[in-house]
């Protein structure tokens, strides 16, 4: 085994990131690049630090996360409801099929102009499109999860006299958890892209601007470093959330042997 492979994973990744940053910094410093086009890592760090200190970046991040979380809560609950309805009735199944066929291929960001007419230039519009982006992956995966629960598990539950709501919460939901987590992960991925895109479009008029607005605003004033700073925050948050999902999976479905460790 090479020296590289023997290093712990964290160290390997950290070294790679450091190398990329070094090359980037060298390119900007030594290449005499126009700073309006590409900011160096040090400039980006400086800009991010300044905006974190005066709370601007922090506020933008907070606004984005609030819109995302609200949208995801609404979308996930509707998704669960649709999937539960689909499990218990034929018409529910058909409704889910029809709705997902219509809406799933539609990038929910395309609904934003309509949402702006309905709800105005308010965070409500963003929450609406995020919810729309998250309903379908949650509903489809949860439905699939319910449907693939082993026959024996269901019989064992019915043997205990479980039915209706208690059957759903006591057995169906935990038994379908691997698929539900997959659905929520997909919903997060869609929702995250949607919220940033929505803020980019929305941005100018937003009083409670998020990260998309922050980036667009920085472009307006040609603050290239701040554009990069916004991008870095988006990327870092993405990594953190992925890590959070990994943690949840290790504590639940992996621990229960329902999913193999990654």
């Amino acid at each position, binding site marked *: 085994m090479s020296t590289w492979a023997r290093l712990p994973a964290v160290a390997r990744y950290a070294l790679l990131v450091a190398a990329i940053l070094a090359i980037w910094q060298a390119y900007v410093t030594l290449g005499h690049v126009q700073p309006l086009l590409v900011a160096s890592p040090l400039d980006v760090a400086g800009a991010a630090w300044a905006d974190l200190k005066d709370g601007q970046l922090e506020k933008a991040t907070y606004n984005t996360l609030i819109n995302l979380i609200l949208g995801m809560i609404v979308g996930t609950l509707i998704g669960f409801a649709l999937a539960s309805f689909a499990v218990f009735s034929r018409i529910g199944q058909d409704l889910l099929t029809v709705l997902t066929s219509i809406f799933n291929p539609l990038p929910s960001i395309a609904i934003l102009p309509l949402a702006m007419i309905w709800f105005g230039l308010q965070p409500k519009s963003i929450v609406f499109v995020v919810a729309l982006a998250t309903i379908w992956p949650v509903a489809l995966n949860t439905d699939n999860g319910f449907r693939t629960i082993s026959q024996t598990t269901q*019989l064992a539950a019915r043997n205990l006299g479980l039915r209706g709501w208690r059957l759903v919460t006591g057995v169906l939901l935990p038994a379908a958890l691997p698929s539900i987590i997959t659905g929520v992960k997909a919903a997060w991925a869609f929702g995250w892209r949607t919220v940033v895109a929505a803020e980019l479009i929305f941005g100018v008029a937003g009083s409670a601007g998020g990260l998309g607005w922050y980036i667009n605003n920085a472009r307006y004033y040609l603050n290239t470093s701040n554009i990069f700073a916004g991008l870095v925050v988006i990327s870092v948050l993405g990594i953190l959330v992925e890590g959070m999902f990994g943690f949840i999976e290790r504590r639940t479905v992996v621990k229960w042997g329902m999913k193999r460790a990654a």
Partner: protein
Amino acid sequence: MVVAEDVAVDYLNPAHHGRTTAIEDASFDVRRGETFVIIGPSGCGKTTLLKTIAGFMRPTRGKLLVEGHPAREPGPDRAVVFQDFDQLFAWRTVRDNVVYALRVARNTPVRAAREKADAMLALVDITRAADKYPHELSGGMKQRAAIARALALEPTMLLMDEPFGALDMITRNQLQIELKNIHRRTGVTIVLVTHSIQEAIYLGDRVMVMSRHPARIREIVDTHDQSDVESPRFAELTGKLRELLVHRDQELDVPEEAVL
């Protein structure tokens, strides 16, 4: 306990767009405290019969009474032990599987449920695995846990659907011995479905032999008190059941698993 009169069960067969009769003209009774074994070639409908007693299905014709009442719904008074390991809830530890069953099926208070669960786990000798999750257990241990969960409910009868079918021979024999002991100690009525002749004679007080397509009762054989596998009587019964199962079956595609 169970009285069946001319029971027939049909099921919808999507492949043939029609109804297939799984069981025809089944009349039998299960007596309190006995181990009643249903044996037959695989796919003959013996599991369907057990599911009907459990209340998962209803008889299409005839009458099936459990403790004097038609079994319309499944319930913890007829606790089922299945062959598949995923009858245990994967997200609960072995102890919590038993505790949860007692909580939802019998409304047992938490403390009492825990005490009862521990007693049951001790009965089936898996106390050391109480805090493990099902996927961490061997097949035999999982079946022990399932039996503990079923017995904890204090059912009027224990319905077992090839409970040892997925286990290796050694584990299987060991669990047969223990089930016999448990039966002796608890006196619970057991209805057991199997396709092993040896298991049927060893565990059963009476063995109901079924034919197939559709399943009809061929004979109910008295096999009580056969714990010596080497005895001449055991050999005689083995011959008799094999004769009933195999040689009188006109069909040529008798599965090998039915032959001991």
